[in-house]
Structure formats: structure tokens, C-alpha cells
């Protein structure tokens, strides 16, 4: 039967992609339905409960700048906050929060339940309704049909999942959930390219059985960082420590002895695992010269004893896991609560997606999250947000929008996925971003909030807050540019002690701030330079913009130069066989990706500048023939 109410957007899956997608569509005023197999698992952190980190923290701040939930939930659930790379430049600093799993889930659940225009429904989805190449709804496990012109699928954890512990394996989803098998089978019948990936988790340990006196303490930062721009320190729960220990020679011996029963080393696993987050058996085998590897011992919450030993992901048989864990300092008496395992699962080649994350084959159908080959809550949330907002736009026949590589890490993420696909679970690193100096955590609002407001994603209160900040920054910059210090004045003399050299000609406060040895607070210590702005975030922006000015300008010029290419669209159904002069190899690559613009085409590995010129010539000819 058909459910009587019609929806604009249906989101399938209640993980981090699904919740952001549903919230985004609902914020934009669309009648939205979130379907999940289990309402209790909404916002579940099914792996290590930490949010952020380098590259990932950047994504979270961007989701936040568009009024997404992730940063705000992290502020309510974070039990240890740190700024990574604090001693390096602002562009590469990133926030990380160790979270309480239960508090995080509660925060997300509360947001979902209080969101106008959003309905929740508990039922697994088994099939899609597709008419004339367009999606028109979904069918649930019990045969109930829901109709909507757009559907966002976020059921990646884990499609067609297969769990391995030693040489044993069985079908399974994330953290004890059933795998979405019926839907996986159905999707395999559609014209998408399905591939297989692999990832792993460490055994979880009962904190009461750990001898913490043998571990190194890793405290959170003081003062405690706040994740969301609208977040407040007072929202944070009680803060706790994390710890560090390490593997040793004996651990490595135990692992080597167990390899004959490893599903990876005996060829039972076919999926490709990530290069950057290897299982502990991989670490030991690939880096045989290292006799120790760090383990970060992370609490999973305030009300649980479960501890996540980050760094010993493994699919070795349980008896080996048991011995290897107990060989580690502090873990001598450790009790394992859940064994570690490797999981293989399906994903869909994201080169079948448009920049909006709509699939190329089925109109109105969007994919977001792990289904696209990514790993990580943050990557999932970013995609969910983009897919949700684009579904919402499509319902109203509006142009799709997704950020470019120069605008956001979200743009880097999506562009990498749709242009290059992925061979391993994709996660964000700052080195993926060409415009790293522009894409900072501290200016996510500057980059995105106004766009979000125009799209209808951003609330009035955030918009007001950002406008105030922007005006304050501009005012202060104006003041610094207009205030001059002259040589041979008392101020200049005090300045000399700061600069280590005399002021030889008059200089504006802005000139002085740009000096390497100067900082905003130092400058403001001069009586003549004040009054300083009282909002720390404004002062920070003024300072960073001054210090990075030359580089910001250079990167902006680079972007400007690419603009013409970015603004030259390529028809989606272009017949690449008709483009004269292309080599067979380049032709094939273009056919696979079907880039949306000349600029995207240029970024496909192996597509040369000459090939781009040939494409330009061809497009021009087509246009002339058409007019």
C-alpha cells in the first residue's frame, strides 16, 4: 500500500549522512521523511566516538557554517577537546573532540525530533520505485510504499557486509546491525558500478581492567576549544583524559605467529583496505623495521567503561587478539568486551554521480556517505548535507549547488569522488586541497554561511551572528589601515622594543601587523594602537588575514585564472568519439567520468592540456553548429 502522505524528500538511513541530509532538506522547508531500520540508532557513532581531526575538523566546521548538526552535537557530547597542529599555522589547525557516544546520539536525536518539516519512520527499505529513469519513492520491508520525487540513499554501513574474524566470516553490518542486503541486491540490478572495500576495528577493552598507571596521559586543551560557531563552553559535559600506550616486540611476535590464520594474509578478503589506517598486522608486516606502534586509548563515554584502543585494528583470530592485547603495557590484565574484526562491503563507484551527488543514471536519486566509498562520520555528514540540500533544490526546480574545490573541503571531497573515484575508503587530508591556505577552520563561516543563508539552509540567528562578525572584522581592518604611527614619537619608541628595530617611516597599524614578529595582541598593547576588539574570533580573523594576505591573494588569482574553464560546461551526453585528435586512453577516461565542466575535465588524471584544447575546439564547433 502507499502511505497516504506525500513527501518532497525521502532520506534512507539514519547515520551521519542521513541525519544531515534530512535536517538540511527540512531546514529548507521541504516535507522530509527519514526512514531508518532502527530509530534507536539515529546518530550512532558506530566506530570510534571522535569527531574532527585534521581535514575532518575542517569538514565539520563547514557543515556547521551551513547550520548542520555535527559540530553542535559534538559540543554537547565532547568529553575531550583538542586543537591539533596548534603550533603550526592557522590553515592547518584542526579541532578534534572525543565524544560520549550516548550523549552524541541524544543530541542528534533531539535535533531530529524538534526539526519542523521532518518525520521519522522506522522500517528498513528494500526497494526503490523507479519510473522512466526517475526515482518516485521507496518500498519498505513490510511492503509499505512512500512516494517522493527525490530520494537520498545513505545506507552505506554496510551494504552486503561480510565480517571476518580470523578465518571465520559471516554476513553482518556495522556494530551488530544487520547488513542492508535486500537493498544491496536490488541496487546491484541498477546500472551502477559496484566495487568492494574493506575496513577494520580494534577489539574494545573494559577500562576497569586497564592499568592506567602504565599509560601516558593525554589531557584535553585548556581553555577547552568549542566546535560550533554557535556553541558554548558551558554546553560541554565533564572532561576526561585520553591515554597513550604502544605495541612492543612481543606483540609483534604474537602477530607474526598468527598470520597463517589471518583472513588478509591468506587471501580470504578481497576488498581493498585503506593505506593510511592499516590493521596492526599490516603495520607489523609492512614496516618491519619499527619495533613499536602508538596506541591511543580513548574512552567511549562518561557512563561506560568501554575503551577504544585506537591503533590495533585487527582481523586476527580471537585467541591471537587476546594474547596481543595482553602483551601491551597497561593491558596485561585487559578484558576484551568486543573482538576486533575486518568488514568487507559494497560501494558504488562515485564517478556515476553529479556534483550535486545525484546519480547520473536515475534522476532524483542521490547517494551520500559510505555508499560512495568514503569512510568517517565527517565525510558522511558533508555529503549528506550536500545531497539533502540538492534534493530540496530539485523539488522546487532550482539549480543544483555544490561548493568548488576552492570554496570548501566539502568541494574537494565531492570533486575527488566524482572525478577520480576511489580505490580505498576515502578520507580527507589537508594535502588533498590545493587551496589549503584559504580553506581554514576559522573562516568556514566566511566561505559558506552567506551562500547557505541564500539557499535557505541557515537560520536567522546564525546569519545575524555572522553578519555581526563580518562587520566587526571589516571595521577593525579599516581602523588598522587608517591609523598611522610616526617615527620619533613615544609610540614608535615602544614599538622599537617590540620590533627589535626602529620605525624608519610612518606605518599603518595594518602594515605593522603584517610584520612577521608582530601579533595582534602585541600591537594592541601599545596605547596608541587600541582599543582592541573584544571578540576573540574577530581579532583572530583580522590577524590571520593580515598574516596570510600575500598567499591569499596569490591563491585567489590562481582561482580567478581557472574561472573561465570552470564556467565552461560540457554537455552531459557529449559524444567523445566525435572529438577530433583525442587519444583512445583520454577518450575512455572522459567517457567514464563525463565531467561537468572543462575545469573538471582537466583534473582527470591523464587528461592533458592538449586534450583540453581539443575539447574546447570541439565544444565551440558544436555551439556554432547549434546556433
Amino acid at each position, binding site marked *: 500500500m502507499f502511505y497516504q502522505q506525500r513527501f518532497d524528500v525521502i532520506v534512507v538511513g539514519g547515520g551521519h549522512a542521513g541525519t544531515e541530509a534530512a535536517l538540511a532538506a527540512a531546514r529548507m522547508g521541504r516535507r522530509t521523511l527519514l526512514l531508518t531500520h532502527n530509530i534507536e540508532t539515529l546518530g550512532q557513532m558506530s566506530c570510534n566516538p571522535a569527531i574532527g581531526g*585534521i*581535514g575532518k575538523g575542517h569538514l565539520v566546521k563547514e557543515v556547521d557554517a551551513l547550520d548542520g548538526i555535527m559540530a553542535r552535537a559534538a559540543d554537547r557530547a565532547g568529553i575531550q577537546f583538542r586543537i*591539533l*597542529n596548534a603550533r*603550526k*599555522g*592557522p*590553515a*592547518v589547525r584542526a579541532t578534534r573532540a572525543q565524544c560520549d557516544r550516548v550523549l552524541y546520539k541524544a543530541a542528534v536525536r533531539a535535533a531530529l525530533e524538534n526539526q519542523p518539516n521532518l518525520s521519522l519512520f522506522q522500517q528498513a527499505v528494500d526497494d526503490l520505485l523507479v519510473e522512466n529513469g526517475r526515482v518516485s519513492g521507496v518500498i519498505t520491508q513490510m511492503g509499505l510504499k512512500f512516494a517522493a520525487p527525490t530520494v537520498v540513499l545513505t545506507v552505506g554501513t554496510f551494504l552486503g557486509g561480510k565480517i571476518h574474524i580470523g578465518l571465520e566470516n559471516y554476513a553482518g553490518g556495522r556494530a551488530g546491525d544487520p547488513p542492508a542486503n535486500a537493498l544491496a541486491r536490488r541496487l546491484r540490478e541498477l546500472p551502477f558500478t559496484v566495487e568492494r572495500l574493506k575496513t577494520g576495528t580494534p577489539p574494545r577493552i573494559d577500562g576497569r581492567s586497564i592499568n592506567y598507571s602504565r599509560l601516558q596521559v593525554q589531557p584535553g586543551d585548556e581553555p577547552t576549544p568549542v566546535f560550533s560557531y554557535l556553541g558554548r563552553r558551558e554546553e560541554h559535559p565533564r572532561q576526561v583524559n585520553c591515554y597513550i600506550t604502544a605495541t612492543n616486540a612481543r606483540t609483534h611476535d604474537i602477530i607474526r605467529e598468527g598470520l597463517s590464520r589471518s583472513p588478509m594474509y591468506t587471501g580470504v578478503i578481497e576488498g581493498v583496505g*585503506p*593505506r*593510511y*589506517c*592499516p590493521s596492526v598486522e599490516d*603495520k607489523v608486516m*609492512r614496516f618491519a623495521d*619499527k619495533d613499536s*606502534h*602508538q*596506541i*591511543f586509548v580513548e574512552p567511549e563515554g562518561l557512563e561506560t567503561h568501554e575503551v577504544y584502543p*585506537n*591503533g590495533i585494528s585487527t582481523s586476527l583470530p580471537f585467541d591471537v587478539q587476546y594474547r596481543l592485547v595482553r602483551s601491551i603495557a597497561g593491558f596485561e590484565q585487559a578484558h576484551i568486551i568486543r573482538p576486533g574484526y575486518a568488514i568487507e562491503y559494497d560501494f558504488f563507484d562515485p564517478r556515476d554521480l553529479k556534483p550535486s551527488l545525484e546519480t547520473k543514471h536515475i534522476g532524483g536519486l542521490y547517494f551520500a556517505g559510505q555508499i560512495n566509498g568514503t569512510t568517517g562520520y565527517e565525510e558522511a555528514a558533508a555529503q549528506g548535507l550536500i545531497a539533502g540540500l540538492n534534493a530540496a533544490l530539485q523539488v522546487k526546480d532550482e539549480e543544483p549547488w555544490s561548493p568548488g574545490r576552492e570554496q570548501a573541503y566539502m568541494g574537494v571531497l565531492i570533486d575527488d569522488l566524482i572525478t577520480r573515484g576511489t580505490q580505498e575508503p576515502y578520507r580527507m*587530508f*589537508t*594535502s*588533498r586541497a*590545493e587551496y*589549503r*591556505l584559504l580553506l581554514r577552520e576559522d573562516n568556514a563561516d566566511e566561505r559558506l554561511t552567506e551562500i547557505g543563508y541564500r539557499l535557505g539552509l541557515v537560520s536567522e540567528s546564525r546569519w545575524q551572528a555572522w553578519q555581526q562578525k563580518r562587520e566587526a572584522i571589516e571595521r577593525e581592518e579599516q581602523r588598522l589601515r587608517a591609523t598611522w604611527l610616526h617615527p620619533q614619537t613615544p609610540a614608535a619608541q615602544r614599538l622599537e622594543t617590540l620590533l627589535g628595530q626602529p620605525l624608519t617611516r610612518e606605518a599603518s597599524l595594518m*602594515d605593522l601587523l*603584517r*610584520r*612577521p*614578529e608582530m*601579533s595582534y595582541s602585541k600591537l594592541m598593547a601599545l596605547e596608541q594602537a587600541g582599543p582592541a576588539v573584544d571578540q576573540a574570533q574577530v581579532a583572530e580573523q583580522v*590577524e*590571520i588575514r*593580515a*598574516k*596570510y*594576505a*600575500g*598567499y591569499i591573494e596569490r591563491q585567489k*588569482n590562481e582561482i580567478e*585564472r581557472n574561472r573561465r574553464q570552470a564556467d565552461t560546461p560540457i554537455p552531459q551526453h557529449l559524444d567523445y568519439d566525435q572529438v*577530433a*585528435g583525442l587519444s583512445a586512453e583520454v577518450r575512455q577516461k572522459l567517457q567514464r567520468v563525463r565531467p561537468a565542466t572543462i575545469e573538471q575535465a582537466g583534473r582527470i*588524471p*591523464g587528461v*592533458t*592540456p*592538449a586534450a583540453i*584544447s*581539443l575539447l*574546447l*575546439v*570541439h565544444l*565551440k*564547433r558544436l555551439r556554432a553548429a547549434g546556433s
Partner: protein
Amino acid sequence: MVYHPQDRTGRPLTAAGPGDDGDTIAAQATPPGRGGVGIIRVSGPRAGAIARAVTGKELSPRQAEYLPFFDSGGEVLDQGIALFFAGPHSFTGEDVLELQGHGGPVIMDMLLRRVQELGARMARPGEFSLRAFLNDKLDLAQAEAIADLIDSSTEAAARSALKSLRGEFSRRIEALLEQLIELRVFVESAIDFPEEEIDFLADPQLRQRLDRLANSLQDVLAAAGQGCLLREGMNLVILGRPNAGKSSLLNRLAGRDSAIVTAVPGTTRDVLREQIQLDGMPVNVIDTAGLRDSGDEVEREGMRRAWEEVGRADRVLLVFDDSTGFGTQEKAILRRLPAGLEVTLVRNKIDLSGGDSRWRQTDHGPSIGISAREGLGLDVLKAHLKQVMGYQGSGDNVFMARRRHVEALERARAAVERGRRQLVEHGAGELLAEELRQAQQALNEITGEFDNEALLGRIFASFCIGK
């Protein structure tokens, strides 16, 4: 906290390296039939400013003026004709400047560098035509021709440019690239994986590596700057069966007897090299052992070396005896040549065969008749070589490709230098990283793509990263 790219005096460093603009392009071009005159053509928004800087005066559009060309120090580089066309009334539809000088390749190269210093970048093959086409300056029927031009000249130029930078030079560039990648592996992993145990940015090794890279770049550029790139010349390899007259041809082109000529087949057993000038353009003529099935071990070695030379050739002269004609053995040689390598067929001994020396197009390439012994047809051959190896009208050639390489090396060097200062003076690792990325982009133009993904691959292969 120190992030602004400025020097000690607080003066901002120029944001972009030379030629980083990407909008104004330059190339060397000589219209066919006007050998001896070199033309530099510039197109784009900076053409007017470049004209003013080079000639020291305001040019009126479309009025040829004979005047001196100045270098940055105000010294006269060359004397010649300057012509300025204001867009859209120009060949490309943009502002266009043409500088016609009489200098040989070395002067032309200096002039090109001057233009580049003023903000133009070296044009890619076919780029002038492409712009003309995109700006509606060429009609649609010409689109096909442009496509061909971009396509074929790119392949040929890319092939010959790197290869003709003889073994040593390209090895040095490969080594540079490797040094740069290793550095980036350190710097990028320090940024993306700060929880790993070592902080590479604080490691004194990093500075040493950076210094070493800066020095290597300096060395390579110094070598290139002395014109050795140009002086190295292009490689013209003579191939053919024994006794076809290869050594005689070498002696003729060189104007002296450097190779031993006998009637005994297999006389030349090693590779012989002579540098000649064609219109001041250096060309290495390389004589090789005759190619045949031979049991002689020494001769076999000679043939192996002959094929090695082919690997570095910009062009091949395939010599055969005109009285016996072009036969299966010649065809066999042609089949073994790498795709895209250009060949001229030389019908030798026309004094015996009674054939003429006329240039002909054949299925296997252009063909010219000569008598190496009597000195017939050599002027036709030389004229032909000038045309196919010299500065060509609209296409690309090895000189242009090399100039692009030098430009890229210069950009890389400037970026590494800025990066070194960011690290050493300000401890700004992320700005060092940004400069190294720029350097990488520049070197990529010579050696081909090495992207973020490849870099991550290297990081994960070098260090055990991740929890």
C-alpha cells in the same frame, strides 16, 4: 606567528613567480621562407606593457617600427622591427606584439626570456591558433586543422623535447623531482599526521634537504642559463645499410673528413658525432654503424649503439643507394623506429643512378636525392632540414619546448627559495608546503603529472601512518 610572504624590510614578495600569470603567452615563430629572421610573438593582456618595456616607447597599432630591443638593464639586446596589434583586431583577437630580430637562436632566446620576465609565459603547442579560434578569428572549417596541429605537434614536441635533453640533463631533472617529492613527503606528513611520533618540520634534516634541492635547481638552471640547452643542439641521426654512404654524408655536412670512408662494408663500427650550424642553429649529426645482419660482435655492438642514438634522435636521415633503390631492408629499419619520430629519406649516389635531387613526398616521408661523393643536392637537403628542424611558423619545435622547461625550472627555483625562507626565518611549515606545491606544479610541466593522490601514496609507503 608569521605568515606573510615578505622579506626582512617588510616589502611584500611578488606573489607570483615569473610567467605565473597564465594569461599572456609568447612563442618564437618564423614565417616560412624567411629564414634568418626570428620572430617573437606575444598575445594577451600584457602585450602592450611588454611592448613598452622592450622598446622603451609607445607603439602605434599596426605600424611597423625599426628600433632597438632593450633588456632589463637598458642594454640593447637586438635591433629589429616591432609591430603591435590591439585586440580584437589581431590574429588571436587579443593584444598581440611581434618582435622581429635578426639574432641567431641565442639572441632570440634572450629576447624570449625578456618577454617572459615581463609576465608572459611560454605558449603551449597550438595555443595561438586555439585562442584565435576561440575568439572567432578563424572560421569553423579550420577547426579540424587546429585540432591536428595541437595533437600532432604536442606529441612530437613532448617526445623530442625531453629526449633531446640528452641523457644527463633529463637525469638531473628526474633527480630534482625525486628530491622535491621526498621533501614534500616529510612536510605534508608533518601537517596531516601530527600525532605520529616525529615532527619532521623541526628536524634539521629538513633544512639540509631544502638547501640541497635549492642548490640542485640552481645548478641545473645555471647550466641551462649558459645556453647549454641551446648549444646542445638537436640530434640528427644517419641510418642506413652498410655502404649506403652515411659516413660520406656526415663528412659532407660537417665539411671535413671526420669519418673514414671505404668501400668495405662495416667500416664504421661506432657512433660518430659532429656539430654543424644551420642558420646558427646547432645540430648534432650522428653517423652510425650500418644496419645489417652481421655475425661480427664488434659490429653488433655498433648497431646496438646506433639504435641507442635513435632513442635520442629528433630526426632520422635514412640513407640508401639510389641505384639499388628503397627496398625491404630500408622498410625494416623504418618499422623499428619509434612512433612519431620524423624521417627524411636520402637517395644517395644519384651520380651513379642518374636520378635527380628533387624533394619529393613519399609514403614513408619526404625524400631528397644527393650524391655525397660529388656534393650534389646538399643545398636542397640543408634547406629541407632548416625548414623541418628550425623555428617553424605556427607549430611547436624543440627550442620552444626547451624554453618552456627552463621557465618551469625558474618558477620551481623561486618557489623553493621562498619556501626555504618561510621555514628558516618564520618556521611557517604550511607556507613551505604551499611553496613546494607550487614548485611541484612547475616541475610537473616538464615531467608530467604527479598529483596529491600520488603524494599521499608516497607518504603511506614511507611511514606507518594512521591509528
